[in-house]
């Protein structure tokens, strides 16, 4: 399959999953199994990883996991981090044998960054972060240099399913803004190349009207749209990172149709989409047709079905 070839030049990759049985851990396991001898691997999980499918951690790779995880005594323990989880603080160890396990890792981006930095300082060439359900924040530049989207195909309404996949990918791959606000904790309007801070009250709608671009701190949600209600003409909204956009497929589509443009200040590239269309015998889609369809709607992004060997 050659997933590793998509990761060339990157040091840390996150696997983000959407949908049921998206195959995040399977994707992780593929990467781990493909790694050639000599490539120093680091593995961790954002929360609890490998519950349905255990993570297969090759001998000699480094693992960052909560100290009360069962496999901790199968590791040569190297370092204790300041990251805390309900299963104890996160420690880093070297697998003394090939292990199959469920692991619990850091629970917030700040802790994940510390773990990632420590794995890196311990000499890992590639750090793989397995994600928990629908945690798109894992695409943050603080968590990874690039990410893989693992899609679970579990919807019977096919038209809606394709729409959803397309929107999700569009959101996660919005372009990077050419201009950066002075801070990420306030609303700003870019007027004549100057970022002007503003508060969320109606008096400022005029300022927004004049703005070439507005910066929205934190999450951009349906609630944010309430403030900008009645805004029909094209508005350019910049967020700190793409995963901070939480809009329904319907709103995303209609905003785009109305000429809205979304940008981000930072972005980790989406390098690959993996597909799991094998979630059960009740499933009505042909995995091969499914792969063709997803490849077509996400083109030019690379899409692979790990089980199809294609």
């Amino acid at each position, binding site marked *: 399959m050659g997933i590793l070839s998509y990761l060339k030049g990157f040091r840390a990759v996150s696997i983000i999953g959407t949908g049921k049985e998206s195959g995040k851990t399977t994707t992780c396991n593929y990467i781990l*199994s493909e790694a050639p001898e000599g490539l120093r691997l680091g593995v961790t999980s954002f929360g609890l990883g490998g519950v349905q499918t255990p993570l297969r951690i090759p001998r000699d790779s480094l693992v960052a996991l909560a100290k009360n995880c069962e496999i901790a*005594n199968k590791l040569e*323990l*190297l370092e*204790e981090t300041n990251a805390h989880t309900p299963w104890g603080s996160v420690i880093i160890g070297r697998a003394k044998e090939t292990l199959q396990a469920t692991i619990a890792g850091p629970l917030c981006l700040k802790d994940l960054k510390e773990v990632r930095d420590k794995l890196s300082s311990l000499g890992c060439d590639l750090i793989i972060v397995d994600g928990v359900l629908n945690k798109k924040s894992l695409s943050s530049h603080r968590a990874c240099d690039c990410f893989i989207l693992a899609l679970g195909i579990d919807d019977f309404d096919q038209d809606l399913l394709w729409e959803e996949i397309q929107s999700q990918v569009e959101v996660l791959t919005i372009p990077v803004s050419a201009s950066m606000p002075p801070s990420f904790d306030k609303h700003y309007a870019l007027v004549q190349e100057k970022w002007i801070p503003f508060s969320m009250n109606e008096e400022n709608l005029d300022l927004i009207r004049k703005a070439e671009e507005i910066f929205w701190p934190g999450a951009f949600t349906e609630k944010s749209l309430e403030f900008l209600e009645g805004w029909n003409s094209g508005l350019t909204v910049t967020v700190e990172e793409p995963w901070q956009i939480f809009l329904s497929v319907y709103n995303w589509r209609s905003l785009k149709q109305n000429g809205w443009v979304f940008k981000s200040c930072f972005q980790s590239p989406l390098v690959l989409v993996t597909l799991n269309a*094998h979630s059960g015998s009740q499933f009505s889609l042909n*995995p091969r047709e499914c792969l063709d369809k997803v490849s077509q709607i996400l083109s030019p992004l690379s899409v692979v079905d790990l*089980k*199809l*060997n294609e």
Partner: protein
Amino acid sequence: MDKETPEKLEWDNFLSLFEVRSHPGLQFKNTLKPFLPGEEKVLQKELIRTQKFSQFILKHPDWLRSFSSNIQELKDLRNSLKKAQEGGRLTVTEIFEVKHLLLLIENIKAMLKNPELSWLARFRPKGAPILFRILNKGNQSPQSFYIVDEFSPRLKRIRKEKLELLAKIEAEREKMSQELQKVGLKPFDLDAISLPKDAPQVPFILSNPSFFMKSESRYELVFAARFSSDVLKWKDKVKEIEIEEEKEEKEVCRKLSQKISKFVNTLNQDTEKLAYLDFLLAKSEASLKYQGILPQILSKRSKTSLFMKAGLHFPLALRLKEKGVEFHPLSIKLKEGAALLTGANMSGKTVLLKTLGLNVCAAQHGLLVPAKSFKWRPFDFVFFSTRGKEQDGLSAFGAEIFGLKKALSFSEKRGLFLVDELARGTNPKEGFAINAAMIKFLSATRSTSLFVSHFDGLAKVVQVEHWQMKGLKRISLEQAKLLAKGKDGDILLRLMNYRLERVKREQNIPHDALKIALLLGLDEHVIELAQTFLKKA
């Protein structure tokens, strides 16, 4: 200090400047106790250590960096150590933490051997190199820990057997994979080989006895490798061995825990020393930030009880700095007994009380003081009474009196009473009387008291030392009228003189309230009207 005084003095704000790096360091800071009269010698040593350490870290930034990164690794292992002492078996991660602590202790011990730090010898951790050697068996690195084979010959035997079986199983798997590679398949998992029903490899796999079909869905077939009975036996054996291996690993942990239990006291004492060093570092760094000086402890024979030259209330000074305003350093000298402080509104009387209280607390906790000079005789307690808030169902006046009542119950001790406008909320006649009585009462005790008051004639009645803030003395009301025109309230900050002077011949308290109101922008007509009322009165 009573319950409310630390909050009123902003003691917690001040302590937040002392940033410890470890959890034990934080615990040390949170249980910090003041040095009391009778402990002057110990306090002096502590203050000198703080000053010396500040100077040392300033001179050796590389040492500081290294020490700082080591000390932040310090963990609180008291629970694990207690478990070992009580005969419990530590887990692998707990033993790893103990080994990590031992290494940390050795690192810090080596750093403290610096000849310039010989005066810190008392706080040099002892360490347990023997225990470290016990835990550092085999070829593991000093930083890491694993139950290596060298801990137990039996474990070594078990693991060897397991590895041999795993190698045999792997060889069989490899054979199966090669079979599949012949038809262009490179499955990731031999226990779940998914293929579309129309895949060209399906007939090959179906006809190959080494594989069997596991499941079938509408579009795909899932196959799995059929291993020989030998492989299945080996797999079962591996499972059995793994149980044995785990048992033996636990036995090793039990034995190591026993060894650790013999060093628990040393490790706990060393952790305490490192926690102290963490706090010493934090206070030395903070002292450098606020340019703290070594306070001087006065002898019992000294007539002066408290002397402060150019002192700062550092948390307040920081807040003012953020607004672009400078804190005017404050100086005062107090003798045992009571003294009176008067001055215009907003001239900084309350700030002076807070500065004195905070800096006395700092000095008695072994911290350097933000001042040019600071001398004092340690107090048994500090009590700060300021404009009361309603609390516990009591009115502001009630709360104020209740606080004083509590503090006075310690009047046989040597305290510092800082009393701000006592009884301001009651009728002036009785308020005057209460103030006079309190001053008289406290001047006859061993305590040192400073009373802030606006009551005219109080100084004459109580006959105690009288200090006054210079305030707006130099400016007449007419000048104030001219200056206030078209200016905002900031003019007041520029005109106000925050210095203190001792009142030698008794005089009335300054009457600057109208000037201040004017400079703060109150309507001129109201001021004129107030003047006429004042004349009539």
